[in-house]
């Protein structure tokens, strides 16, 4: 019963807090740049306004164009609801391990790229092409991180990974550090942050994510924006859950434990968002063909971590 409740609360919580996290990062970024910045709740208002507006769809857009936002959102939402945030012991945590979560994000990306190609404009194509090129390095890098974690914990189940890292068996490890750096780089690329992509620009030749959703408007755009916020929340929650699992409520704790877990999660999200934005403001946007080197670094770090583990383990 408790697992059902936790799962349901998690489903709602990630959805409710995702726009807030986006608002927070925008605000911090503006403050770091000595600007006033939008109010924290601005993303909610944006979503509400987009929902109220009519959707303008190109003449030759197909059914795929109109259904893709819902599929993308659904895949991202399911993935986000399977990453333990404030408490472990989710009802459906046995349905999907870390590899599945990575692949669900891949499904979302697949349909986003197709949606970008649907209308047949130059910008949609440029976005889809670059996104898939980034993904061809980011996804294996992410899987290498998954390998590292699961070799530590002897399991690809996220709940077991975080339980292992909380437990006494875990210690500081070189491989774990490499995995953290790789995961951070992948998160930057996946969430279209500087230096890989710039969500705040509409300068044509630099945009990737924005180029794919250029033709969207109204409720479709709202759903896609919400999916993008959810993805950022997912990545920060994943880093928090794996590398800083402290404070998360476990199956045996009472209500106070759950509240504490919730507070800890919010704190971790805010800290993660702050660090992300700090990194973002300290670095310049890369040229597109520098990005593969950046992501290739993540892949190599991840692979190095895995090989170190493979070699150092005598018995699993």
């Amino acid at each position, binding site marked *: 019963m408790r697992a059902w409740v936790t799962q349901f609360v998690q489903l709602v919580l990630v959805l409710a807090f995702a726009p807030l996290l986006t608002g927070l990062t925008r605000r911090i970024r503006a403050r770091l740049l000595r600007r006033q910045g939008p109010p924290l709740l601005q993303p909610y208002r944006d979503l509400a306004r987009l*929902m109220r507006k*009519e959707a*303008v*769809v*190109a*003449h*030759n857009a197909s059914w*795929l164009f109109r259904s893709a936002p*819902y*599929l993308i*959102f*659904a*895949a991202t*939402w399911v993935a986000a609801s399977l990453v333990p945030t404030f408490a472990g012991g989710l009802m*459906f945590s*046995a*349905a999907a391990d870390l*590899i*599945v979560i990575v*692949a669900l994000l*891949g*499904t979302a*990306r*697949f349909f986003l*790229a*197709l949606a970008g*190609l*649907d*209308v*047949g*404009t*130059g910008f949609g*194509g440029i976005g889809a*092409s*670059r996104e*898939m090129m980034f*993904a*061809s*390095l980011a*996804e*294996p890098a992410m899987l*290498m991180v998954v*390998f590292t974690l*699961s070799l530590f914990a*002897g399991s*690809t*189940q996220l709940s*077991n990974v975080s339980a292992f890292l909380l437990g006494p068996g875990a210690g500081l490890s070189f491989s774990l550090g490499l995995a953290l750096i790789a995961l951070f780089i992948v998160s930057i690329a996946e969430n279209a942050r500087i230096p890989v992509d710039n969500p705040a620009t*509409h300068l*044509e030749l630099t945009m990737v994510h924005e180029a794919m959703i250029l*033709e969207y408007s109204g409720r479709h755009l*709202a*759903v896609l924006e919400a999916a993008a916020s959810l993805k950022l929340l997912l990545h920060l929650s994943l880093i928090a859950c794996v590398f800083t699992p402290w404070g998360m409520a476990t199956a045996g704790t009472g209500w106070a434990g759950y509240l504490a877990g919730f507070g800890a999660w919010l704190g971790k999200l805010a800290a993660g968002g702050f660090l992300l934005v700090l990194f973002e403001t300290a670095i310049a946007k890369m040229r597109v*063909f520098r990005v593969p080197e950046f992501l290739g670094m993540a892949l190599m770090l*991840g*692979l190095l971590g895995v090989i170190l583990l*493979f*070699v150092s383990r005598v*018995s*699993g």
Partner: protein
Amino acid sequence: MLNQLAGVGIGLLLALAVGSALLARARHAAALTYGASALICLALAGIALQALGAGGAPGVALELRVGMPLARTQLGFDALSAAFAVIVNLASAIVSVGAIGLGRHVREQQRVLPFYPAFIAGMNVVLLAQDAFSFLIGWEFMSLASWALVVSDDCSDSNRRAGLVYLIMATGGALTLLLAFGVLAGPDGGYAFGQMRQATAFAPAAIVLVLALIGAGSKAGLVPLHAWLPLAHPAAPSHVSALMSGVMTKVAVYGFIRIVFDLSGPPAWWWSIPVLLAAAATALLGVLHALMEQDLKRMLAYSTVENIGIIFIGLGLALTFKANGMAVAAALAIVAAIFHGFNHSLFKSLLFLGSGAVLHATGERDMQRLGGLIHRMPLTALAFLAGCVAISALPPFNGFASEWLTFQAILLSPQLPQWIPRLLVPAVGATLACSAALAAACSVRAFGSTFLGRARSEPAAGAGETDPWSLGAMLVLAALCLLAGVLPGLVIDSLGSVSELVVQGRLAPQSGQPWLGIAPVDAQRGAYNGLLVFVMIASAAAVTALIARRFASHALRRSAAWDCGFPEPSPLAQYTPGGFAQPIRRVFGSVVFRAREQVSMPGPGDTGPARLRVELHDTVWDALYAPVVRAVDATAGYLNALQFLTIRKYLAVVFIALIVLLVIIGTSR
């Protein structure tokens, strides 16, 4: 009993081949041949499923008093051949249904119809053979029938070249298999598989491994022996391409498993090294080639090469685990490999049927001249999309389930005692992950440039939906892709007896897992539930759509595309498949293909167009095949002089040859 029934099925297929050869010009010959093939294959699939359920066919093997002296032809199921017979016949049955529609477009029916059932019969003989002779006879039958199908349209130079390359490679492959069986049979010459298992080979088993890798690997399309595959598979009519790519490659995989896992005795740990290296290279090179390809069918053929690499990664892992006595891990790896073979037979058949439908609707195979077909062929587009999702290893479709199992097997390999596989396996895992991501890019590119966007040519703009037979076949295949993805436990359980036979271990039964999920090793190590993931995505999408419907504005306005305010009216301004792959070509291609780009800009005031020249090399062909071709050419040119000798010189040559032979015979006595 099942063996005899299967024998009857093969006999019927052969009779059908003869019958359609005689009646190929009759009015409904094509529909009747393909319909009958579909029914026979369906029956064979049912028989094989029965045999698989029983872990092999009880009772005696079917003995035929034909074939070599001293050796009777023995046909019969065991668990391994039953599993592959299900894969082969299920896909063949559905493809044959599609062929009722697609096969009508073939110009010269008499060059296709007789060979089609014969091809399927040959594959079944290979699977059922219990001795080396019938195995090889079936193998050659399959090769020659498919060769005849490849050259059925010999109007173009490229098809004739494909036929030649295929014939040479197939002959070489069969020769190495012959040698492999010869080594296995030992000095006593026991050519039945039962005798081979007992016999002591008179050469190290490693030679058998190399011969099997060359023989079966060349048929499957393992790098560097893949060169014929992207030439021959697309040259055949599309429904035959579906069989060759989706089904025949699985027969090759079967041959490899049969020889290396079953007949060669216990493997040494280092056997996996050449297998894993070749497999990883195959997976990566296959998908990169597919990404560079503009031709839809050739792209699919290269993607077959990639998937064969994924299957052989599983087989290589299974070899290491088996050599080290890790039975459960070996079972996991071999189940992953065979499951992926099954999945590939489904989605590759689907995609080739789809490409056939596109080809007949537009007359185009070049993706650069297609586009926008989702509007004119909506159901084909839907089925093709399902195939693309499945082949890109995305949940909840079946390609993901088998790749997930492969990843789980990779994660068990730190327990291996040897150093080399422990270093090699993570690199192979990274390659597998990389090729999975590239496969997704490849699918996006193929679907996007064929079905999405605006039509790039006149025929693409005027296309119409394809016939109901091939549509039905494609939709059934798409449904099976989804079904195998959401219920992987069923497949894993039915492969239990296979892994028992091949690696002497089996996975825990999955039917007891909650909610029809899978947890192959144990639930704490890793679990996946395709059904639940599918239900969750579907209901989350439905809930979102409902919420949007309830609370959001319903207004929808059709308008011109926005495109940042400067929409380009010409459909040629869209991204082309070549442009789509350009970033990937720049990242990976400079090493793999020695790709060079050259931009020539017109000078100031010059109104000529700017040109981009791209140079790609097939490095494997240049390094391995081109020297052989040159050597053969040079030798032939040199020997050509022998054709123009005088009669005295000919007599002298004959005399010298006679002397040399006599000397050889005399000294060897």
